[in-house]
């Protein structure tokens, strides 16, 4: 896009009016600087503003983010029965955002602690937080941690962790190709591309079964060049909710190791998917257990409800302690010119909870409650569709896991549901189960039934 630099022009009437206005501003300004120059005249200059032009004239308006745009549309709808199943933030049975009790407790302790200060964190973040995060995902007895082969750096939630990892790989890894599942979270390709990686996809979702296209996945990863990076959703795949079984994970791991493919895990739902922190970390731990290297991006947005605090971590499991130490030093060079050091508040909350036995237990209970409510919504929706005799096999609703369900509804059906029933979801048919309640399940079931029978 060529920049436009305004050229010098003669003084037009507009310019003179603008000059007068600006002089008026200069005289009435409270600034002492202005008053030192009472006779200051500002000549009509050739700069953009005086011509009414802008150096930003060529810049077009960017479209709204597709996922966040759903909530924008929802907010505009005046219907009293409208339902927002768009963005992936947990909601209570009453449809309200939730701050975990244990988080409130931790925050009280932090804010009331007079010895706490707000000094800059190190570039890689809060040390305790990093250690505890690594233990959370890799397991407290992970040999990789004990051998000091893991470098963990605090980052800005999942997005920030993925970005820092991608930048590091683009600079230091010999293979700049990353494979992402089809489909995946909309922000994934953008993060990797802007970091300097090339993006390819591997088959993942099978619309016929509304499950995993395992054959396609194996074929596509088999044909990937040696050393290519592979993005794996650790659990609760977003947007489909379709996860490989443990047996399938074993095969994926074997294939990837035999081809020297580098795993890059995105773990945004540990504990949130099944309700068990350990169970949800199994795929990651399986890879680490074979002694190989991998990257893992962790987010505390959902499982601790810390969405807006932007807390996450990037871990890189390396072959040796020495490599891990060098890798860490290079991660600092990525972070320093991006934001210097990460924000303290969210990380402090996480560290406070993870290091205290009681608070940790309280967290696991609240986490399980959130996961259970979502599983219950799945069951209720499935039962409601069966009760209505809605055509089709809806068992994927209870087979899929995590916050999202890929309904299998097409764009016409989605548009119909929005127009006739005021139900808001992304156009790919993804619904956020976290936005459902026992009260609203019947409404959604009616809408799906109508779409499935009247719109084909």
């Amino acid at each position, binding site marked *: 896009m060529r920049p436009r630099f305004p050229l010098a022009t003669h003084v037009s009437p507009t310019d003179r009016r603008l000059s007068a206005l600006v002089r008026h501003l200069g005289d009435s300004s409270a600034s002492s600087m202005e008053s030192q120059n009472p006779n200051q005249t500002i000549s009509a200059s050739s700069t953009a503003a005086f011509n009414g032009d802008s150096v930003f004239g060529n810049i077009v308006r960017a479209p709204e983010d597709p996922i966040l745009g759903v909530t924008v549309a929802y907010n505009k709808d005046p219907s009293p029965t409208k339902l927002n199943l768009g963005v992936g933030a947990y909601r209570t049975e009453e449809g309200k955002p939730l701050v975990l009790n244990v988080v409130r407790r931790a925050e009280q302790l932090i804010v009331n602690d007079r010895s706490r200060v707000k000094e800059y964190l190190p570039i890689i973040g809060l040390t305790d937080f990093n250690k505890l995060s690594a233990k959370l995902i890799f397991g407290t007895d992970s040999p990789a941690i004990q051998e000091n082969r893991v470098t963990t750096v605090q980052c800005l939630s999942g997005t920030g962790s993925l970005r820092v990892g991608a930048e590091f790989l683009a600079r230091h890894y010999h293979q700049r190709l990353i494979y992402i599942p089809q489909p995946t979270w909309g922000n994934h390709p953008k993060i990797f591309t802007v970091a300097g990686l090339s993006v390819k996809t591997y088959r993942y979702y099978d619309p016929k079964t509304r499950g995993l296209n395992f054959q396609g996945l194996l074929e596509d990863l088999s044909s990937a060049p040696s050393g290519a990076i592979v993005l794996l959703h650790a659990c609760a795949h977003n947007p489909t909710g379709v996860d490989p079984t443990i047996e399938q994970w074993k095969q994926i791991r074997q294939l990837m190791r035999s081809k020297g493919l580098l795993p890059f895990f995105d773990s945004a739902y540990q504990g949130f998917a099944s309700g068990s922190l350990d169970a949800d970390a199994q795929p990651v731990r399986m890879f680490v257990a074979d002694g190989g290297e991998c990257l893992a991006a962790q987010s505390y947005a959902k499982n601790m409800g810390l969405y807006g605090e932007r807390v996450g971590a990037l871990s890189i499991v390396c072959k040796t302690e020495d490599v891990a130490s060098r890798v860490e030093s290079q991660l600092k060079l990525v972070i320093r010119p*991006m934001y210097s050091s990460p924000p303290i508040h969210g990380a402090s909350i996480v560290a406070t909870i993870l290091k205290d036995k009681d608070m940790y237990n309280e967290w696991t209970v609240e986490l399980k409650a959130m996961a259970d409510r979502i599983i219950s919504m799945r069951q209720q929706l499935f039962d409601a569709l069966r009760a209505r005799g809605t055509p089709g096999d809806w068992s994927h609703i209870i087979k899929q896991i995590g916050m999202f369900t890929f309904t299998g509804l097409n764009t016409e059906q989605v548009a119909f549901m929005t127009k006739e029933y005021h139900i808001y979801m992304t156009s790919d048919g993804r619904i956020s189960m976290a936005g459902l309640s026992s009260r609203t399940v019947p409404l959604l079931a009616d809408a799906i039934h109508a779409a499935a029978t009247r719109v084909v």
Partner: protein
Amino acid sequence: MVISLASASPSASPAMLENLKAQMKLGSSHVMFRKEKANPFIKTQSSGRITMALAVNVSRFEGVTMAPPDPILGVSEAFKADTNDMKLNLGVGAYRTEELQPYVLNVVKKAENRMLERRENKEYLPIEGLAAFNKVTAELLFGADNPIIQQGRVATVQGLSGTGSLRLAAVFIERYFPGAKVLISSPTWGNHKNIFNDSRVPWSEYRYYDPKTVGLDFDGLISDIKAAPEGSFVLLHGCAHNPTGIDPTPEQWEKIADIIQERNHIPFFDVAYQGFASGSLDADASSVRLFAARGLEILVAQSYSKNLGLYAERIGAINVVCSTSDAAARVKSQLKRIARPMYSNPPIHGARIVANVVGDPALFNEWKEEMELMAGRIKNVRQKLFDSLSAKDKSGKDWSFILKQIGMFSFTGLNKTQTDNMTDKWHVYMTKDGRISLAGLSLAKCEYLADAIIDSFHNVS
């Protein structure tokens, strides 16, 4: 042991390779592959089996070299390791009390308590940040009644303190002004270059510091800005220049604005010390407001790290003043596109604190008082240091630059060897460019520091 891949190739002798394999069993930290060769995992034509065996135990990141420590943040680490009683940390720019303790402002504590009482939620902010924060931050910078705000001509996006806001701007420049250069002062904050390098924005320096006068090289500044290609971005420190502490006078600011207008350059302010430099929020914003009043389109990065002591909360903003509200809306939408694949949306905590303090008249006034105290302490320390130097130094050297410079930092004029002497002999930690952070100095330590400086100046070359 460094082995070039050439010697690990099939043409290497079997004995050599056996040796290598034996080494590998001891752990690959003993073996380094030279980085200029490509992938050690690529099979070579013949002895593929051997190179694959080598490949299995080698890290994919084996070629990653150890990066040097950050020049500014590394100083604090060295300070911590020093066990000497007299040690003094004048490295990083974080405010300290007279007792040399970190300081959390009272208004910040009050704001946090209010936030806690209100039991606010932790939902995602919009990509552009907290609306209440964006509103107050633009008003604080430009003045609440500034027409540019009322006309909707300012695009404000919450950023990760100064660094993050500069980074959003840098990426924006690279995308929409490809090939345009950023002119940065010589010297400037060390991280500026890193930010522009990582964003692939070309930069060049304009003269700024004159070591002969320990003041501003104004003619050099004007000359270099004039000589730059038309439409360059000129990075200006709004007040309290880092690292020199030397600011242009109001008259000099006018002339700088003249030359920028003449050359169709775009002013790009870094405002990290509003209120912290002189003690007055309005006075410290006068340079920015002067440019805005001329109707110029401007970029301004803000930070609340120092003036609200919110260092670790990472709260700041990038403001783009446009000639029309339509342009501002479009610019804002593109800044959001830059933020989304970087961190999706910014952190809430610091933004809420700022919104609460700046948006509440009582807290805002209390903040102004605390800021005057902080700025006042620094001025007192400057005075005491100057007095100590003048009293102790018999050479007749003019130390008045200490009083003329403003803000947290002072450029002492010490060279690298002299700086090393400060650290090695006197246990005074500072950055190699001769910069000291007065925020880390107490009245009690002024005499000691004066001794150190005098010794380093006169007895070390």
